[in-house]
């Protein structure tokens, strides 16, 4: 199946937070019964705010208390409800880590944690950066970890989550992110990576907001005669290890790109697979280094740390030149 991406079009933006809430509204209108918990950061004018206004009896505000929100979400789930819990950026994994681990995952409850403002997309500096969450999530049993590439894919993940068993986290960016997919006419299966562009010189494996930049880098590489495969690794756990092995077998090297620390996230997960696979694939990780981020606009920070189109392309060219 040929997947149409914004690679072929002008950059278009959309907002995964709004998309999530609009899909929640659609599901409520279709008769699905579920609860929604949130914190004191949901604007009345947002899509989630409108959902709350329309369905107040199923919405619970926990103020500025993420531990309590996540634990109580587990309790609501224990009463027999699917729960969508929208929590701001780092305050989900860092403040409520124990509640995610013990209340939601150890008790194996159908809570869908919607972690907003992934990576550095919130702006505002390291207190509002969310660069360590995947490292935590990957190590918690029972937890399925989804990082949609764009708003349209977020809708697919939210819809899939209704019939999916067990706990899940859906990690989305702040909003107004570029679309990766020009059409929603493609298959989205949890745990199965999507090859959005074929190539054999190198594989660029991205997750979340980094998928778009991987795609743009592949475009730049084409001009230099380098054929880059682009993989959308939207599910971090369970990881599609077969897709990684295919990249190792069929292309000249692998680069992972993520808006997360290079420790513990997608890059680490792929490195683990490659080391055990043992075919000596050339490999590099692009992500946030082991430092608290410099201060600036998120797009500038991406450029600073090499997550933008030209930086990824340059890194790919260097990797291609390396002898195996």
């Amino acid at each position, binding site marked *: 199946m040929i997947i149409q991406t914004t690679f072929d079009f002008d950059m278009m933006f959309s907002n995964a937070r709004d998309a999530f809430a609009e899909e929640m509204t659609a599901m409520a209108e279709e008769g699905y019964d579920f609860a929604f918990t949130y914190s004191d950061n949901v604007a009345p004018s947002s899509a989630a705010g409108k959902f709350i206004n329309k369905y107040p009896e199923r919405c619970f505000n*926990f103020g500025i208390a993420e531990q*309590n929100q996540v634990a109580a979400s587990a*309790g*609501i789930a*224990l*009463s027999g*409800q699917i729960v969508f819990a929208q929590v701001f950026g780092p305050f989900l994994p860092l403040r409520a880590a124990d509640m995610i681990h013990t*209340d939601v995952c150890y008790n194996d409850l159908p809570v869908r944690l919607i972690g907003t403002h992934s990576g550095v997309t919130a702006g505002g500096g390291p207190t509002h950066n969310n660069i360590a969450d995947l490292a935590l999530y990957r190590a918690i049993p029972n937890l399925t970890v989804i990082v949609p590439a764009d708003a349209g894919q977020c809708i697919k993940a939210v819809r899939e989550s209704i019939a999916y068993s067990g706990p899940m986290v859906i990690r989305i960016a702040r909003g107004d992110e570029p679309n990766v997919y020009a059409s929603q006419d493609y298959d989205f299966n949890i745990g199965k990576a999507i090859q959005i562009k074929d190539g054999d010189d190198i594989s660029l494996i991205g997750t979340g907001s980094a998928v778009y930049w991987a795609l743009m880098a592949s475009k730049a590489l084409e001009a230099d005669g380098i054929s880059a495969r682009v993989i959308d690794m939207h599910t971090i756990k369970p990881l599609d290890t077969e897709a990684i092995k295919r990249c190792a077998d069929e292309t000249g090297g692998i680069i992972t790109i993520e808006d997360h620390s290079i420790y513990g996230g997608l890059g680490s997960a792929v490195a683990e697979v490659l080391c055990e696979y043992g075919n000596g694939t050339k490999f590099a990780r692009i992500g946030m280094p082991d430092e608290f981020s410099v201060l600036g606009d998120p797009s500038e920070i991406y450029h600073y740390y090499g997550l933008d189109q030209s930086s990824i392309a340059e890194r790919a060219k260097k990797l291609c030149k390396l002898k195996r």
Partner: protein
Amino acid sequence: MLQINELEEKAYTIRKNLLNFIYRIGMGHLGGELSLVEVAVALYYRFMNYDPTNPKMTDRDRLILSKGHCSETLYTIFSDLGMYSMDYMVEHFETLNTARFGMHSNRKYVDAIELSAGSLGHGLPVAVGLALGARKQGFDWNTYVITGDGELNEGSNWEAIMAAGHYKMNRLTMIVDKNGLQMTGPTKDVMNIDPLDMKLEAFGWDTYVVADGNDMAQVCAAFEYVNAHRCGEKPTAVIANTIKGKGVSFMENNVKWHGGGIAKAELDVALGDIEKAWAGRNCI
């Protein structure tokens, strides 16, 4: 419905069975397990809508034991209610892939356990959600949660206490097993939580202080009060002043008896203490 004298006899039996259970499995938290016996017995044998032959009954009242390290008290009650034999529980206690029971309770293996617990400061926040979920779905069952007093050091409880008051959770009841000791010393010295009743009331709770939480008549009076006040707009807290290690001379108010097993000679003394007190009580 069991009368108070029958509940007292049940508590006497549970205490003895609990001690034998801990002796056989070689581990437990006897201090806190003995202090909560009267509260747990009153709930399971009289005040909760509960059918031991159908522990997942839809309209059952829910009890979360937040001080999950004291699960053996509940296991002993489950055994007395006919849900599991004592031998079965011993044979499946922390036995790796055949384990069903552990020091900290796991709902995956024991139907009667509502929430897998162990880490402190979790039961009350989850109970708030459980009660909210029940209200949302129009269920009229009640949610009970038993916490320790040392456990209230955990800030997560206070977020939950705030939310329960905010949401006027009138079908939520917290019982604080206030035995006055935490692992390394008196609660008032380690991290004082008093005046607990005033703090809870300031957070929008209706509180009932039980002077002697190991006196069955007083415990029952507290739950009668709770039942009579459910129509209000407040969650209720029963602050039960209990004695850690209640009933065993060398354990009572002794910090040393927070966790661990019990030797045969100690078991014999402990059982003798409990039987002697029971016999003495019947002579009055």
